[in-house]
């Protein structure tokens, strides 16, 4: 019997690996997700058949409740809210790993009175620590993204010192726990410390750094599962946890590179606070912008033969993606070469912009990555920037005193004409002026993106 279960776990692990591999190509991605879910189903089935009949009802009830909640959330969630949802699910996964490890520990030390060896004990402590941080950290990320708490970085003096002390305390508690496993209080205190740490670690990180935080928390939830695998001596937990842990780290690195920041710099937080002050002094002369009306903009759109649209998070906030599809189809019908330039950190999680544009039914081969399209701006007639700011700021290339100096940006200013759709002259996340808006070839189209672009489409149709 045991061999069948172990073999099922092996098959599940293989299906996860194949599934992730297939998720890496647009053509096979959907199938890959299914392959991985079949793996999960096999792992669950192999586990359920070994439980006692008396517990089966409880287990099935829990699974039905969880499935119902999961399905409802997955069906209802808007694509703009995907980052929040992933953060929330991450948190649930982390808390589940914590609870499983604590449950096993409690069962052995309290209910069965069995001694726990050091390796298992340390694994329990790690599950509790990582799982706890993942849980509250994800909740804070969720609240920042959904706007129920301020997305600004929350900083106070001594913040990093407090975090460091809490971490040292956690290690100390674990060492104490090793000396006396019959006392469960150590593990409970450790759990509380982890929950507090999760909150403190994420609050100093500003809203636009959330892509990095979500990737990292994703990685943590994998590591928590992995540590729980060591507690239960279970291979499939270790393999899947390690896969997720590694993938989260890779995505975190990609995000950091796209912002020209080190992971440490993001995690220490406070970005946007200090830079706002520094940027204020460096400003010097005020930027004067040229406004453009909808009719005039429509005429410019009508006269060009190549167009690159640069979407940013502001587009998602204004729910302008569908009307942008209309605009792009309209221009294509007139024979304009329309493409979209996607900055790697546009949106609130890696690849978020692609999902939003896919939902609006825009073909994915029109979405071009920054590195591939950056040289093409120079021979493009018109660039239309919608709700993006810092990722098109030329100061990142030219102004060494700018806080975003060195960050790879889209070379939109090289195009013949740039039209920027923006609600107001409000600053981007980094809190700095955008030199692009004052450039000679840049025209500002003020107003809510959805409304102005709808009007724009109407005007172009009439021409």
């Amino acid at each position, binding site marked *: 019997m045991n061999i069948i279960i172990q073999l099922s776990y092996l098959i599940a692990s293989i299906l996860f690996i194949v599934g992730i591999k297939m*998720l890496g190509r647009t053509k096979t991605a959907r199938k890959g997700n299914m392959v991985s879910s079949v793996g999960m189903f096999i792992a669950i089935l192999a586990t359920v058949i*070994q439980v006692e009949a008396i517990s089966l009802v409880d287990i099935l009830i829990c699974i039905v409740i*969880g499935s119902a909640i*999961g399905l409802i959330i997955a069906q209802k*969630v808007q694509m703009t809210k995907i980052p929040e949802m992933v953060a929330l699910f991450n948190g649930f996964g982390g808390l589940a790993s914590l609870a499983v490890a604590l449950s*096993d520990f409690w069962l052995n030390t309290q209910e069965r009175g069995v001694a726990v060896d050091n390796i298992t004990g340390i694994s329990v402590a790690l599950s509790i620590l990582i799982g706890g941080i993942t849980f509250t950290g994800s909740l804070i990320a969720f609240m920042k993204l959904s706007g129920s708490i301020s997305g600004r970085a929350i900083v106070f003096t001594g913040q990093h010192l407090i975090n460091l002390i809490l971490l040292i305390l956690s290690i100390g508690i674990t060492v104490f726990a090793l000396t006396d496993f019959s006392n469960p209080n150590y593990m409970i205190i450790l759990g509380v410390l982890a929950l507090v740490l999760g909150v403190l670690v994420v609050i100093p990180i500003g809203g636009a750094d959330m892509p990095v935080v979500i990737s990292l928390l994703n990685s943590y939830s994998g590591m928590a599962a992995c540590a729980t695998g060591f507690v239960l001596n279970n291979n499939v937990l*270790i393999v899947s946890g390690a896969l997720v842990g590694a993938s989260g780290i890779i995505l975190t690195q*990609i995000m950091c590179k796209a912002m020209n920041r080190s992971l440490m710099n993001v995690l220490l937080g406070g970005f946007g606070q200090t830079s706002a002050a520094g940027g204020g002094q460096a400003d010097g002369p005020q930027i004067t912008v040229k406004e453009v009306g909808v009719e005039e903009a429509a005429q410019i759109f009508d006269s060009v033969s190549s167009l690159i649209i640069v979407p940013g998070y502001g587009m998602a906030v204004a729910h302008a993606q569908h009307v942008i599809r209309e605009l792009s189809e309209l221009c294509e019908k007139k024979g304009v070469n329309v493409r979209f330039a996607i900055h790697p950190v546009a949106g609130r999680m890696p690849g978020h912009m692609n999902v939003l544009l896919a939902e609006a039914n825009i073909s994915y081969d029109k979405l071009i990555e920054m590195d591939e399209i950056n040289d093409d701006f120079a021979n493009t007639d018109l660039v239309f920037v919608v709700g993006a700011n810092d990722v098109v700021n030329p100061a990142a290339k030219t102004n060494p005193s700018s806080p975003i100096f060195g960050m790879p940006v889209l070379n939109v200013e090289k195009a013949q004409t740039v039209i920027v759709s923006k609600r107001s002259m409000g600053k981007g996340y980094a809190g700095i002026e955008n030199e692009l808006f004052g450039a000679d070839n840049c025209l500002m189209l003020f107003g809510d993106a959805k409304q102005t672009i709808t009007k724009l489409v109407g005007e172009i149709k009439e021409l």
Partner: protein
Amino acid sequence: MSAETFIILLYILILASYLGFELINKVPPTLHTPLMSGSNAISGITIVGAIIACNELGYLSVSKWLGMAALILATINVVGGYAVTDRMLKMFKKK
């Protein structure tokens, strides 16, 4: 846990991590969001541990209640994660 078992588990951990790095490195940015929510669903594998934890003693047992809470949370993670990933990938079309 014996030292031998620990070493074997450590081998599994390291090899699987390396495999994870290799697999993800080549994924195009277009797919990063579905990839993340898909791998998020996989991290719900802790559901296996939760089921085992539910299989203990009676309703007076703390570990059983912890297990049941973990099972509900992990199921939300797994089912919701796979469902939303599928919903996203359904939309990726080339015209």
